[in-house]
């Protein structure tokens, strides 16, 4: 830990009259798992979109590995090693699961790191899927993405990022919609990614599961940073309780 991978300084974005993100600053250190929580509409996903180039910020600056990436195109940011999953998964339904990974396997980043000698992309894709629990014996990697249950789709989404061998993966609500058993199959994957040296940002509503994983948590509320600290501290914070549960009206 220690090295600052990603710095977000004073980032703001308004959609019409709605101030989605207002003056948020944060730093991400190499090797940690940073949780970002907040009530619905607090600007979590917008923050991810701003950091990964899907939405251009009104003001502020994003620095990744010492390089200013503010306003850079999404595919360029992904090629630098800052990747993200999507909250609403849209795999390429008609393709089999492993064919879904052929697309990132053709990105400049993968081609560069494999020095052009990727060989058979199909078998590379199947190997990666097997690593994250697509049972090859049950021919799961060969099934069409549209026919897979949600737990597999979430992992497929993660695999799409892993293929790029990124520095950072931003997981946008990777637990949402999953059953307890599916979540407990995803958690070890995330822990393994951390051991492999990938830094994670997790946007989550499932606080109990998040707090098992996260080293540090940031709370957003109405687009602004409300609190920051380790999970225990944050939950004791009165402002955070008010944001989630509402304030008691004083007489």
């Amino acid at each position: 830990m220690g090295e600052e991978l990603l710095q977000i300084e004073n980032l703001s974005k308004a959609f019409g009259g709605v101030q989605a993100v207002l003056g948020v600053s944060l730093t991400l250190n190499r090797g940690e798992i940073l949780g970002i929580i907040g009530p619905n509409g607090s600007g979590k996903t917008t923050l991810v979109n701003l950091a990964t180039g899907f939405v251009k910020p009104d003001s502020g600056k994003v620095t990744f590995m010492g390089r200013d990436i503010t306003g850079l195109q999404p595919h360029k940011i992904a090629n630098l090693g800052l990747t993200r999953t999507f909250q609403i998964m849209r795999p390429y339904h008609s393709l089999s699961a492993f064919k879904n990974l052929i697309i990132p396997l053709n990105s400049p980043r993968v081609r560069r790191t494999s020095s052009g000698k990727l060989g058979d992309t199909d078998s590379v894709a199947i190997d990666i899927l097997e690593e994250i629990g697509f049972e090859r014996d049950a021919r799961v990697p060969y099934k069409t993405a549209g026919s897979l249950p949600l737990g597999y789709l979430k992992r497929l989404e993660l695999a799409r990022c892993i293929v790029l061998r990124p520095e950072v993966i931003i997981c946008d609500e990777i637990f949402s919609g999953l059953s307890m058993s599916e979540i407990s199959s995803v958690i070890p994957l995330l822990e393994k990614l951390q051991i492999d040296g990938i830094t994670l940002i997790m946007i989550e509503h499932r606080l109990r599961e998040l707090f098992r994983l996260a080293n540090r948590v940031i709370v957003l509320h109405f687009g602004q940073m409300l609190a920051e600290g380790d999970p225990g501290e944050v939950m004791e914070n009165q402002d955070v309780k008010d944001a989630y549960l509402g304030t008691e009206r004083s007489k």
Partner: protein
Amino acid sequence: MTTEARRKERLDRSIKVRTETLYALTSWREMGYLFVPRFVLIAGLLLLPLILGMYWQRVLCTAGIYALLALGFDFLAEYVGLVCLGGAFFIGSGGYISGLLNAHFGFPPLLCIPIATVAGAAVSTLVLLPCLRLRGIYFAIISFMFPLFAVYIIIALNVFGGTEGISALDILPNTWVEQYLILGVILFALFAFRRLVSEDIGLIWRGIKDNDQAVKASGVDITAYKTKAVFIAALIGCFGGAYLSHLYGWLGISLFAMDFSILPIAASVMGGMGTLVGPVLGAFILTPLSELLRGFGQLRVVLYCLILIGFIVYKPEGFMNVLQRKYHQFERWEVV
């Protein structure tokens, strides 16, 4: 009273499943299953010039041009997600470049056509490049605008022959070269496109069609890939245009006629979107049909529309999808 509900059950023929892998090479039956439909198509197209009379040979050449446009339209719409109504622009830019090279520099047609194919595709791609960010209907409308735009520029500036056009261009050596040139290009393009869409680049295009956000997040530059797709589709369209100007030995603003943008869509709907071969065959049916209906004058358009409406209502998936289904699957009625 109970009504007996029935539904059609469709199952892949076992031979289809067997021929999906290397296993197909184990017997003549399997190989024939794969080879015969392709052979019928190739032989059928190549034999056409031999059995047709003079007039219909010319129709065949025109149909070939529409077939190339339909193939390009189907490829862009179904495999890349770009509904491109710029067929007339492809024809026009290819035709004008080829014709002008011939008229001003005296290049022979067989040199003009390849140059115009590549140069026309480059021009078309450059023109469409700023619109590639648009999706769906918006891209369709803008691409439909460019041929009209080009016509008004030619008329207003009175360049490239203005409204009169340029006549007395060199024509192709003889009718056999005319016919087999276009048929050869169609067959080559058909198999090349089929191959291309199943390569990695084809998967990336399908990814862009299904979900361009995820492709961006995978570190792939979608604009670069869309540009490649448009260039490839424009290549065959511009070839058609260049060929057309040397087929009639004439170029003019009717090379930008709306027919070139519209008929390929009709051919694709009739033939079956996404099959690639369907739109080609659709063009080979629709073009002669509109010639046959020429005697009806203005009523021709009405009959033409009726045929299309018939297809949309009764066989919206197009005849090629139906034929492929009959070939690959068997059906039975099942009581539920």
